[in-house]
């Protein structure tokens, strides 16, 4: 419990630090009033905009000290109020409520594909370590790592959606199956480098684990190879993979921005790009908060899983 409490406090501190930096950047990189109003923020734009400037300063408390403004903003987001978009005054929370689940679904989908493929592949590869098939699989996995996501997205989209029309060319959320089907290529695009990464790490750890005495004992008992691999070797070999799994969450968010564009998936990817271009800070800050929360939560869960994978790892210690 002590570990959990400590980590929770750390998570909160990380999120606060990230939001503080993001809020600061939004406020100090340029004139915040300009970011809200554009060129009419300048006195040079003319006296006819003076009232609008004054209203904006009041609405966004721009005359208050930075820390006060940050505190007010943080208080609002804790209550789920991310403010209104500069673009069209829509509620940012409502907008994200529509888009964020799509991106999270895509990320989870990609991770599921990656795990489902990489684990059996790594087990098989480790069991054939240093043989020709293992070497071939190494070449394949490095090739998968070497293909940029944007190129892979274009390739998969063109072949399977446009040319062969096996998958739809647009996002379809009519039902769960339609959603799975329409997002498969996007998820696979994101999953490909993950598959290779997980496979490489897990294979290496498995090869090491398979040298352990308890594996020799299991084999001496006459247990079948698949049982030895799954039941005895896999769990203690997953530390590296699990660590990377957590870290890759951040990379997945970045990758999803590109993939969503290619596959016309209406997640937060396009929203992030547009918000940054438009200096739509309520949206940018909301996404920063959400992404940082997702990141720390996933990594927290990974930490918890360590003790599950190996009871010798005592979190409270």
């Amino acid at each position, binding site marked *: 419990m002590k570990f959990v409490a400590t980590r929770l406090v750390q998570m909160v501190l990380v999120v606060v630090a990230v939001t503080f930096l993001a809020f600061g950047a939004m406020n100090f990189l340029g004139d915040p009033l300009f970011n809200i109003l554009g*060129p009419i923020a300048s006195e040079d734009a*003319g006296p006819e905009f003076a009232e609008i400037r004054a209203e*904006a300063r009041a609405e966004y408390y721009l005359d208050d000290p930075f820390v006060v403004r940050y505190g007010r903003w943080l208080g609002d987001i804790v209550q789920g109020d991310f403010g209104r978009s500069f673009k069209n*005054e829509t509620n940012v929370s409502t907008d994200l409520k529509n888009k964020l689940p799509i991106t999270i679904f895509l990320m989870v989908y990609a991770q599921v594909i990656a795990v489902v493929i990489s684990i059996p592949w790594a087990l098989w590869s480790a069991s054939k370590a240093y043989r020709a098939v293992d070497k071939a699989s190494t070449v394949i996995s490095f090739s998968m790592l070497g293909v940029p996501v944007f190129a892979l997205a274009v390739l998969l989209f063109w072949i399977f959606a446009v040319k062969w029309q096996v998958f739809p060319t647009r996002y379809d959320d009519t039902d769960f199956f339609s959603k799975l089907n329409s997002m498969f290529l996007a998820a696979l695009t994101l999953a490909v480098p993950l598959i290779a990464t997980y496979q490489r790490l897990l294979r290496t750890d498995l090869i090491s684990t398979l040298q352990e005495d308890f594996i020799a004992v299991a084999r001496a008992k006459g247990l079948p190879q698949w049982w030895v691999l799954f039941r005895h070797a896999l769990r203690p070999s997953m530390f590296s993979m699990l660590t990377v799994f957590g870290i890759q969450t951040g990379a997945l968010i970045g990758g999803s921005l590109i993939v969503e564009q290619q596959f016309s998936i209406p997640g937060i990817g396009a929203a992030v790009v547009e918000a940054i271009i438009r200096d739509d800070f309520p949206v940018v800050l909301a996404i920063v908060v959400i992404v940082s929360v997702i990141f720390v939560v996933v990594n927290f869960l990974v930490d918890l899983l360590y003790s599950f994978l190996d009871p010798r790892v005592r979190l409270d210690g």
Partner: protein
Amino acid sequence: MFERRRLRQLLAVFFVFSLVASACGGGDGDSSSTDADPAGEESSDTDTTDAPVEEGVDETADGSDAITADDETVEVVEGGTIRMALQTEADALNPTNTPLNRAPILLATAIFDTLVVVGEDNEWHNNLTESWTPNEGFTSWEVKMRDGVVFSDGNVMDADAVIRTFEAFLADPLTSLVFRPAFDPEVPIEKIDDMTFQLNPKGPNAYLPFYFAEQLGMIGSPAWLDARDENPELDQMPIGAGPYMISERIQDQKTVLVRNPNYWGEPGLIETFEFFPVSQESARTDQFLSGDVELMHGTDAESILRLRDEGDSIIRIEDSSGEEFNLVMNAQVPPFDDIRVREAATAAFPKEQYLEFISEGTSLEADSLFSTDTLWNVPGLEQADDRPEVAEPLIAAYCADVPDQCTDGKVNIEYQTDGPSAALERIATVVQDGWEPFFNIEVQVIPNDIHIQDVIFGQYDVATWRYHGFSDPDVDTAFLSCETILALSINWARNCNEERDALMAEQRATTDYDARYAIWTEIQENFRDSFQYITITHTNWTVGASPSVGGLCDAVAPDGAEIPCQDKGVVRLPQLFLTN
């Protein structure tokens, strides 16, 4: 309420004022397929050779409608869903405070309808109105509303409703920039009785009804407008009196329209329309050609060529009659404040190269505001481009007079375009090729929002731009007038010419086509000789439809006048149907 959003929109979406301006007098069809050159693939045409020809509707024995298409009989499927990929998403769908570009205009037309519509005959026709009666000097128009029109929320559309919407337009700092100059500043509108109101233009205006054929003619439910004042999110869920109403809208994802049960006219044939914003031209075309949507529109050369390659397997309707692609030069600041530099830039512009490598035969060459197949085109009126020999002495003289603006005998300029966009960067390369001997060019590729903002505020030298080409030429006048050169200017080039202003006022007051044509000839010559724009092409708006979609060219006004199949990418929805 704090008007920040409108100002953000101003900075962000001003580019679409060309399209907003359609509401200023525009109309769907002045420049429509009526004027098409059926022989020219690049012209504004309804490509009926690629489409099932719809010649009549008959009642069949079982009560279903049958469309005769050549020798085939196609059975109409009642109801159903049509999906369409749109070029852009709207920030909001409230016409009173949001400049709507073509994709949102398509949605808004179905949701609101318009007071008048423009037919294939280039004339306006009553739609939500019953009559428009001008006084003798066209200084006021009495407008009577159609009886029995109600909004989808059940409220009655009457004079008060129109006045409520109209005042919302004029109160908005953004939309009023375009519309306010056309009306009397003191009493622009007044109620006569419950169903009649009077419009007072600023001066004699024989073409005022055209102003109400698009955005300005979209009337919102007063209850909705009142509620929206309290909750700006209702801008996403407008309530009008059109044939369809919004049932679902998730911005950037989809907008779903269903039939309006209170619609005053013939109900739409299709039960549901689903619209998806797909800003990437190639992705939109992929979705259409893969059968994931039944309708699309676009302007990109590559996509148009792909649609052409499909031949008879799809329906394709092209319209190059509106929207000119230009380079706009800022006449208010050096170096383009000097007409010699503007003339030199025009002369050195490599239009032939542009047409060959950029347009690839998909769009018409432009020399003026009006396409060759419109009523206002002046044959033989040519822009003096592709003549680098003319540029040389002009630049030499300018650099001798204003050496501060030159380096090594070339004028220093910033060429601004939005992006990143491969197409726009290709255009920049072509322009550089032509201008390089005379100009030191710094190319700025900046986000679209900033690009628009800079042009509005006059913070540019020369920029890529797209507008003009409206259904009635009077609509263009707001963008050429001295009056609209302000801190935020919709006279993009910031070029004031009082002689041209006088001509524009004169053409507005006459109903004689020949006299008006003569005036517009002078205006176009003035426009050309002031070298404020380098007009390049008439944008080709192409609509692609699956063969299962019927009725594209069946839209008619209440008086039976035919309405163009599409107008700059805007397709009317109620007459569309699916075949089996």
